[in-house]
């Protein structure tokens, strides 16, 4: 199983689509690592500068319907190529959500109020978050504050994360 934690990048907008996560013109790359420089190149978010804002972050916190649009698994690949293996959001589009777990990555849904509170209390300061999959708990901390937030993980999603992805799971079972 992969590890899920690190410095948090807050993306304060709903409906961040997979074209924004990785534009289609880069889908001509067949190796995942080649996607690294292009993550969020077209993200429509005021003040966001990919080269400046992405490095050093391993966790994303965002709003509703994260990963909507195209089915491209290049979206989670581009995230992982940049060291981001955990996305926390109010909700996810179906295919993106499935792709994350299929890659052995973690997409954690939290209620709107919990997401709102994360933005309010943490978005303006350096924050670290880590997911403990076994306990279904997110540990969130800053220099002077720490808390634990429980989350729910579907049984099958947990099995995929533990197996390292859907291909590994299916290969062993079907």
């Amino acid at each position, binding site marked *: 199983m992969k590890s899920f934690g690190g410095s948090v990048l807050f993306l304060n907008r709903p409906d961040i689509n997979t074209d924004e996560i990785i534009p289609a013109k880069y*889908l001509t790359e*067949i190796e995942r690592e080649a996607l690294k420089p292009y993550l969020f190149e077209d993200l429509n978010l005021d003040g966001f500068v990919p080269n400046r804002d992405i490095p050093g972050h391993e966790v994303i916190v965002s709003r509703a319907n994260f990963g909507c*649009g195209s*089915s*491209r698994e290049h979206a989670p690949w581009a995230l992982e190529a940049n060291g981001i293996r955990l996305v926390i959001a109010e909700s996810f589009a179906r295919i993106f959500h*499935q792709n994350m777990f*299929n890659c052995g990555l973690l997409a954690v849904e939290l209620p709107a109020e919990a997401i709102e509170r994360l933005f309010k209390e943490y978005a303006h300061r350096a924050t670290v978050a880590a997911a403990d999959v076994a306990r279904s708990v997110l540990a969130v901390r800053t220099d002077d504050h720490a808390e634990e937030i429980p989350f729910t993980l579907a049984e099958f999603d947990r099995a995929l994360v533990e197996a390292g992805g859907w291909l590994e799971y299916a290969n062993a079972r*079907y």
Partner: protein
Amino acid sequence: MGKTVAEKIFDTHVVDRPAQDVWILRLDAVFCHEITTPTAILDLMRKGRDQVFDPSKIKAVIDHVTPAKDSNTALQGKILRDWVRRHQITDFFDVGRNGVCHVLFPEQGFVRPGYAVIMGDSHTCTDGAFGAFTPGVGTTDLAVGILKGVGAFRTPRTMKITLVGRLRPGVFAKDVILSIIGRIGMNGATHRIVEFDGPVVADMNMDARMTLCNMTVEAGGTCGICYPDKITADYLWEFIRGGYPDPAAAAAAFHQWWPDPDAVYEEVVVHDVSNVEPVTTFGWKPDNVKPVRAMQGTPIDQVFIGSCTNGRLDDLRSAASVLRGRKIHPHVRAIVCPTTPKIYAQALAEGLIQIFLDAGCCVTNSTCGPCLGMSTGVLAEGEVCASTSNRNFNGRMGRGGMVHLMSPATAAASALAGHIQNSELFNG
């Protein structure tokens, strides 16, 4: 308790239930294109599992960038070609015989009522127009589909959208689906299958039903579904004639893939199309929908008529009826893309291609290219496109470009006017 269409398909395809809410389904077909499949092929090769579950059930096409535009896309094509030859996959559509997957594969009779089909492409939802369960998936799901012939899906949740009323002249399936997305929102059908029913759908031909189902993913939907009937049977007749005495008998047999009268839906939306007028999008989200008249006069640089949403014969006829005998605006370039060679040939035979050429349009080979800014029609920063495609996301057709989604008739009228324009002006 009665069952929805998806519940019936799940019941007949289930091979395992690894968790209470998860169904492993046997797949009737796995569709592949050159953008999302090569990585799946390489992953399988790296794991020493370069195998396919059944070559006769795998269909492959090169459609996103065709012919190849550079070394990367040439390599993607080569990986796919080498793979189909290695595994004797005979339903492979290479340059010259290729078309946009969600138009080509139904046209080839590969989608049938009651099927479960996956493809590594979100607009696979289009194929549900045949009464099938056809979710788009990512590359790993595709790899498992190729290797094992199965896919994992959540217990289906279905919403029903009942279309009633009468379509006004100049209003098409594209306006209907955009008006629905505008109403329910781009998250309005997430994790749900959308059944389209009602008299308006019953009257629609397969081209229009595919347009409707194509954009269900723009509301977050898993796939659209239309009930398979005589229109479906007529469309598929050349492929199914061995199995039934006539199309009416086929339609009667298809009835098993209709929902039960007491099927349970999460939500039922009744949408009166009598009130729908020609619409277009503004901004970066497909649920930002406005009447064309409210956007009229917005200057445009490019028009794109094509894509898996609106590049079928009916769409080309609709655009040609507006363009016939007229010239497009001198400041506009219009790209017309018939989405399969068969559609291209039919458009040629009907004189539609001549109408496009006379009007000053560029008619391209069948490709997905312009819709997602991959080839043959990329926008420059600050440029605006009136497009019959399905996504107006930021940068979708080229970095810094703006896309307004609309019907082929409205796109054609806009090409003539040089700005967003209702097609009424050009009728007759």
